[in-house]
């Protein structure tokens, strides 16, 4: 299934070749549909992510990504929740520009700087003491800011005029893993598990390019 999704953009490509001889330019908006997969894989996590990019210079695509993620878990020892918004700003570079002007597929390498404003909270925290007896802390909460860098490899294919499918893989480096001395966040929105100073990410996008200019 996953393999099919990855190959799908490539299988669909011949149908749009040669449809438009003019090259269109404009901002491209996308949503990350892989977030929906979290509902099955990790149902405690809910989120949405969009992206905005444009080919401002030949083969160079400045990118803004933004999103929102929450997580909520209940357990025997404590209940935990975290949530907040994030943004990633960066640029993609098209490694294999097509000579045919009607082909808009890209294979890009890029980088991002990510920042997340979020809060996390533990409630009904059981603190064991064999001698004094268990103590239950009502609530621990903290507002945090996370920073990270990403290296991004991505493929985007135009499957119908101005409609794209694409996926990306990301290597992430958390810049401030010590953001909370007492409780390492289970989730840094947009980054992933706060316990890892390095991480991997994946997106699968549906994108639409608003054809403002035709050249």
């Amino acid at each position: 299934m996953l393999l099919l999704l990855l190959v799908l953009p490539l299988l669909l490509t011949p149908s749009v070749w040669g449809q438009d001889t003019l090259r269109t330019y404009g901002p491209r908006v996308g949503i990350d549909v892989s977030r929906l997969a979290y509902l099955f894989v990790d149902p405690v996590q809910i989120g949405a992510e969009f992206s905005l990019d444009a080919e401002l210079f030949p083969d160079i695509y400045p990118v803004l990504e933004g999103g929102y993620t929450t997580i909520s878990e209940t357990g025997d020892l404590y209940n935990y929740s975290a949530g907040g918004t994030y943004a990633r700003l960066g640029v993609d570079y098209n490694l294999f520009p097509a000579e045919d002007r009607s082909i808009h597929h890209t294979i890009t390498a890029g980088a991002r700087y990510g920042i997340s404003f979020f809060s996390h909270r533990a409630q009904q925290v059981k603190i064991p003491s064999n001698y004094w007896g268990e103590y239950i802390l009502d609530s621990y909460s903290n507002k945090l800011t996370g920073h990270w860098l990403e290296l991004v490899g991505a493929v985007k294919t135009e499957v119908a005029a101005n409609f794209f499918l694409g996926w990306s893989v990301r290597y992430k480096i958390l810049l401030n893993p010590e953001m909370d001395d007492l409780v390492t966040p289970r989730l840094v929105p947009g980054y992933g598990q706060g316990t890892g100073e390095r991480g991997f990410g994946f997106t699968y996008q549906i994108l639409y390019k608003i054809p403002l200019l035709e050249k």
Partner: protein
Amino acid sequence: MKSGLPAIIFLVLVISCVTQDICDENDQSELVARFKNGTLTNPDDTIVSGVTVYGIREGQSDSLLYDSATLSRIILPLDPGHGESRFVMTFEENADTVRILHDNEAYLLSYTCGFAMLFNIRSIQHTSHVIRDVELLKVQVDAELLQDEEHIWIFF
């Protein structure tokens, strides 16, 4: 490739079970008190006999931590529910009370093991029937007890 995917799924399930269910970390935050003779500038390790220790637990029956033991150090659990822990220490016939005042902060050991208490010792008070002095060496007491860690020295 066909047989690879179920194998990977199986492996992921096994790994996630193993990492989620087992907690082998210590979650008790305890203070180590070593017995000393001499002075602070010239301390000597000493072994004390007939040591009996219990904590003063409000509303609960006394429970001995040590009973007529011969020791060079004692390990005292601190009370996560209050800002102080009080202990009665009897050496042969004579008893002293030691009162340890602390600030408490909960911290996460790991997602599997949950939380433990980080104690910051503010001060220590004691009666002086047998105990001559108490010296605070290390202010922080957490659930990670290191080899040869010492928090206080009790002088006789």
